[in-house]
């Protein structure tokens, strides 16, 4: 009984901090409609700023608190709203999820750059009033915790009054419902949004400062995850209700502490030791499942235009051939290290392909791609390597690949099945929770699982030694341990899967998927079984994720059960896939290459520059190099707001004029081949070749347009003709569609041209 009371007290203390974090999330969501994934990152950077002010620069505690929570954190919130979130209005749900992910990664990258750029160092935040404590019901409670409880109660009460009783708060909530109407009523939505972001970020900062001492030495991503733990409370309150969120936070805090009590801090059952850390994710999953969902609504036809053109099968085959040829030519010119990072990129592209099907075509979200990679790895390892730990096979077997894909499909089906009712953001959160659960309970599992089925004893080794190794394939007499050969194998696989996806997209099944994305209600009225469709797509996509993940693992050869699987990698991949162009096979290709090149090659270039010019070393290496490494990908993600259809679309639009000048294009292509040959023979440098090719990509389409103006007349004259006659007088073309987008004031396609209407 004594223990029970003591753990209750601790649970309330923990729940209070969760309550502060979760209500902050509720404030921003209920007043801006954006689920601020970056909430945890704001908390983390605020904790670091507080540490810097209090312990780094020895300011007094009250001053440091005021500067952090009332000045710094709200300023971050206001900055985010002004620069990033404001552009999210009228964008699709995927974009509204991706951009906060990008912000999260950017803030954490920035924090790493500022505080941890030279590797690890011990930043140990202190509690308020140090170790001073009270005795409550026989339990020592730090003043720090008492302050947390007090602040949580004040926050909850204050927010309730603000949101439901004050005009400002009601204005904030009205902003989400209908901005334009609010303006027509004399409200000022921009101010209301700024206010809500400032308050939300302030609460995040407070939560960060309160949570940070729990960790001992501060670790950026771990602290961010600690704030994520509070999310189930907010979801339990449907991201709107402050009182339910508060109760949810208490339930969460108590559950964790009671588990500690029952399990003696996880020591009772070693196999379930990590269950403690998985509790928030389990509760999040549960909250999502039992959450009352809105009915299917027909009226929510999104006013966005993220439309992806579909290539014909012929085009797709042609481009696949071009890709294989280009990759073969390219790798011939590259050094070993560059080939490795290109192959890493190709493996990531294979993983991203699963997202093209799931998110690009079907509009569903999976934030746990790497989890499927982990599952596939475990399955393939059981079959090909076995619990003896010795590599018994020289080649990855086809059986292992198929088994891994099958298991991934089943696992994907199992999470999708209960989550079928969920859509968009909620489904994304459910997959993220699932990823965390698998990470904590399976991937971090170092105890072999023993059991018996029908009398057969079996042992499943998970990451028993902390890492797993899978062999690379040895097929058709080719040893793919050779990096170049494996790169080509993956390229061919990418092309084949890509073709299959284009085939799916062009089939009746593909049209059903697209229809489901556009309007589930309309599908239901047409007699489509949405549940079965969704389940099928999810399983197929999970199998593809497993396949891609397995190739990625084979590319790495040995994978540790470290932060590859902790969720952030999946977030990053998802983000980059959307940035690349989630509706395109080429988008997945760009995404993988991009991720690999940006995080490896760019910093290397700057390190090289730094060693060439020692006096500018700090500028190149610490300044630009590390900055690109830590913050670069995320900044590109934030740019997405400007072009939600992704980079692939932009690239293709750039090349579109070439179609009308086939001879010029052929000349250009053959001159590239000639240059490649010269470069391959060593007549010209590889860098010269690269620069000429990259430069020509930008210049040639424009030059051709200038040389043959008569072939582009209709593009130049767009917007002058009577819209009624387009399609009758001449065929309906792409630029006409752009024009109608603008006329209908559909945002998203290109905001800079349609800003006048927002």
């Amino acid at each position, binding site marked *: 009984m004594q223990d029970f009371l003591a753990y209750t007290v601790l649970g309330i203390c923990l729940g209070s901090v969760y309550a502060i974090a979760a209500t902050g999330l509720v404030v921003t969501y209920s007043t801006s409609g954006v689920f601020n994934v970056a909430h945890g990152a704001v908390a983390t950077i605020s904790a670091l700023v507080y540490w810097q002010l209090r312990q780094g620069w020895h300011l007094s505690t009250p001053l440091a608190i005021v500067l952090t929570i009332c000045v710094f954190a709200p300023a971050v919130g206001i900055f985010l709203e002004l620069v990033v979130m404001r552009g999210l209005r009228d964008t699709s749900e995927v974009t509204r999820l991706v951009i906060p992910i990008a912000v999260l990664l950017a803030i954490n990258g920035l924090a790493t750059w500022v505080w941890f750029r030279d590797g690890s160092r011990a930043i140990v935040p202190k509690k308020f009033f140090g170790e001073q404590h009270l005795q409550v019901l026989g339990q020592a409670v730090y003043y720090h915790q008492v302050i947390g409880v007090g602040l949580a109660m004040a926050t909850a009460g204050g927010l309730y009054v603000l949101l439901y009783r004050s005009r400002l708060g*009601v204005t904030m909530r009205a902003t989400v419902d209908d901005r334009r109407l*609010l303006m027509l*009523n004399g*409200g000022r939505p921009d101010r209301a949004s700024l206010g809500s972001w400032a308050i939300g970020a302030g609460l995040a900062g407070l939560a960060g400062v309160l949570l940070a001492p729990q960790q001992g030495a501060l670790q950026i991503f771990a602290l961010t995850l600690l704030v994520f733990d509070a999310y189930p409370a907010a979801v339990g309150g449907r991201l709107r209700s402050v009182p339910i969120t508060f109760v949810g936070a208490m339930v969460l805090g108590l559950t964790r502490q009671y588990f500690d009590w029952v399990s003696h801090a996880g020591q009772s059952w070693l196999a379930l030791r990590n269950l403690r850390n998985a509790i928030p994710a389990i509760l999040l999953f549960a909250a999502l499942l039992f959450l009352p969902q809105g009915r299917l609504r027909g009226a929510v036809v999104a006013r966005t235009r993220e439309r992806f053109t579909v290539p014909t099968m012929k085009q797709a085959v042609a481009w696949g051939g071009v890709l294989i040829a280009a990759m073969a030519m390219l790798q011939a010119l590259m050094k070993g290290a560059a080939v490795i990072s290109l192959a890493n990129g190709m493996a990531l592209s294979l993983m991203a392909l699963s997202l093209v099907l799931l998110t690009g075509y079907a509009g569903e979200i999976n934030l746990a791609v790497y989890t499927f990679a982990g599952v596939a790895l475990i399955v393939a390892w059981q079959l090909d390597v076995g619990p003896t730990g010795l590599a018994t096979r020289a080649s990855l077997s086809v059986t292992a690949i198929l088994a891994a894909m099958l298991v991934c499909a089943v696992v994907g089906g199992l999470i999708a099945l209960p989550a079928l009712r969920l859509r968009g953001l909620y489904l994304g959160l459910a997959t993220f929770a699932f990823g965390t659960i698998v990470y904590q309970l399976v991937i971090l599992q170092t105890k072999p699982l023993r059991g018996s089925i029908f009398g057969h004893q079996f042992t499943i080794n998970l990451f028993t030694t902390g890492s797993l190794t899978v062999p690379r394939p040895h097929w058709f007499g080719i040893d793919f341990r050779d990096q170049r050969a494996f790169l080509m194998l993956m390229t061919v696989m990418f092309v084949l899967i890509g073709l299959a996806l284009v085939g799916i997209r062009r089939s009746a099944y593909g049209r059903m998927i697209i229809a489901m994305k556009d309007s589930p209600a309309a599908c239901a009225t047409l007699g489509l079984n949405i549940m079965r469709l969704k389940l099928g797509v999810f399983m197929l996509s999970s199998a593809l994720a497993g396949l891609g993940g397995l190739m990625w693992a084979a590319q790495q050869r040995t994978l540790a059960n470290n932060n590859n699987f902790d969720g952030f990698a999946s977030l990053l991949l998802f983000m980059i896939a959307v940035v690349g162009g989630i509706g395109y096979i080429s988008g997945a290709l760009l995404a993988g290459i991009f991720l690999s090149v940006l995080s490896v090659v760019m910093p290397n270039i700057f390190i090289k520059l730094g060693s060439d010019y020692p006096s500018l070393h700090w500028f190149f290496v610490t300044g630009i190099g590390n900055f690109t490494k830590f913050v670069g990908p995320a900044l590109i993600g934030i740019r997405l707001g400007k072009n939600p259809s992704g980079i692939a679309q932009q690239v293709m639009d750039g090349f579109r004029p070439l179609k009308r000048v086939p001879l010029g294009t052929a000349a250009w292509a053959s001159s590239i081949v000639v240059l490649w040959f010269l470069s391959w023979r060593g007549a010209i440098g590889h860098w010269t070749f690269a620069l000429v090719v990259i430069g020509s990509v930008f210049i040639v389409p424009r030059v051709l347009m200038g040389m043959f103006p008569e072939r582009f007349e209709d593009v130049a004259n767009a917007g002058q003709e009577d819209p009624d006659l387009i399609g009758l007088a001449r065929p309906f073309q792409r630029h006409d569609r752009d024009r109608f987008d603008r006329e209908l004031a559909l945002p998203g396609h290109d905001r800079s041209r349609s800003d006048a209407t927002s």
Partner: protein
Amino acid sequence: MSESLAESQPEPIREPIREPILELVDVVAGYGPIIVLQSVSLTLHRGEVLALLGPNGGGKSTAMQVCCGLVPIISGQLRFAGRSITGAAPDALARAGVCAVPEGRGIFPNLTVHENLMMATHTGMSLAEIEHTAFARFPALASRRWQLAGTMSGGQQQMLSMSRALATNPAVLLLDELSMGLAPKIVSQLYEIVANVAAEGVSVLLIEQFARSVLRIADRAAIMLNGRIVRTGPPDELADELSAAYLGGKANS
């Protein structure tokens, strides 16, 4: 009919000439490079009910959105009570007394009726006062005070929208397709209120597709076709031309 009413009112200041309150002067407006309004001039006088009629896609709603500041003007002028307010923000216009009830239901579905009415308090009137007048005008709302506005019927939503608009004591009331999706009985009830409000001195710009329902209460009417005002005049004169406009014929008199 309310023109004669206006003349009979002993208000010397606006007796001699009818004073314009809201004017569009050669307004060109549209979305991006696409021009929707091609040089529209329209004057709304103080205390008058002006019906803006015409078929779908003629630019009526754009004209209204220009009046309340939601669509920027490319060239031309928007004048309110004699002053140019071209380019003013929608919230500034609302605070100055140009109140719009937009197409569809002008309510916040996730706020309660009470909170919806709270959004009208920016004029300085107390919430209690606003609720009192609103509930007196639409008794159906009183019992739904704590209900989420989005869960009410279409008619009730439109009543809420109207009462919130009227609570701000606007000088100009812009009503876009008030009748859309509502039962005829409710529509005529709403227009009766519009007529009453106009009689109290509020100037009303009505936009309608179903012209018959508003010609009864309008003092003047204008027909809009392909982004131009093609005809302005007393409602009974326009009634005949309307069918021509709707059926695609030329509306020349």
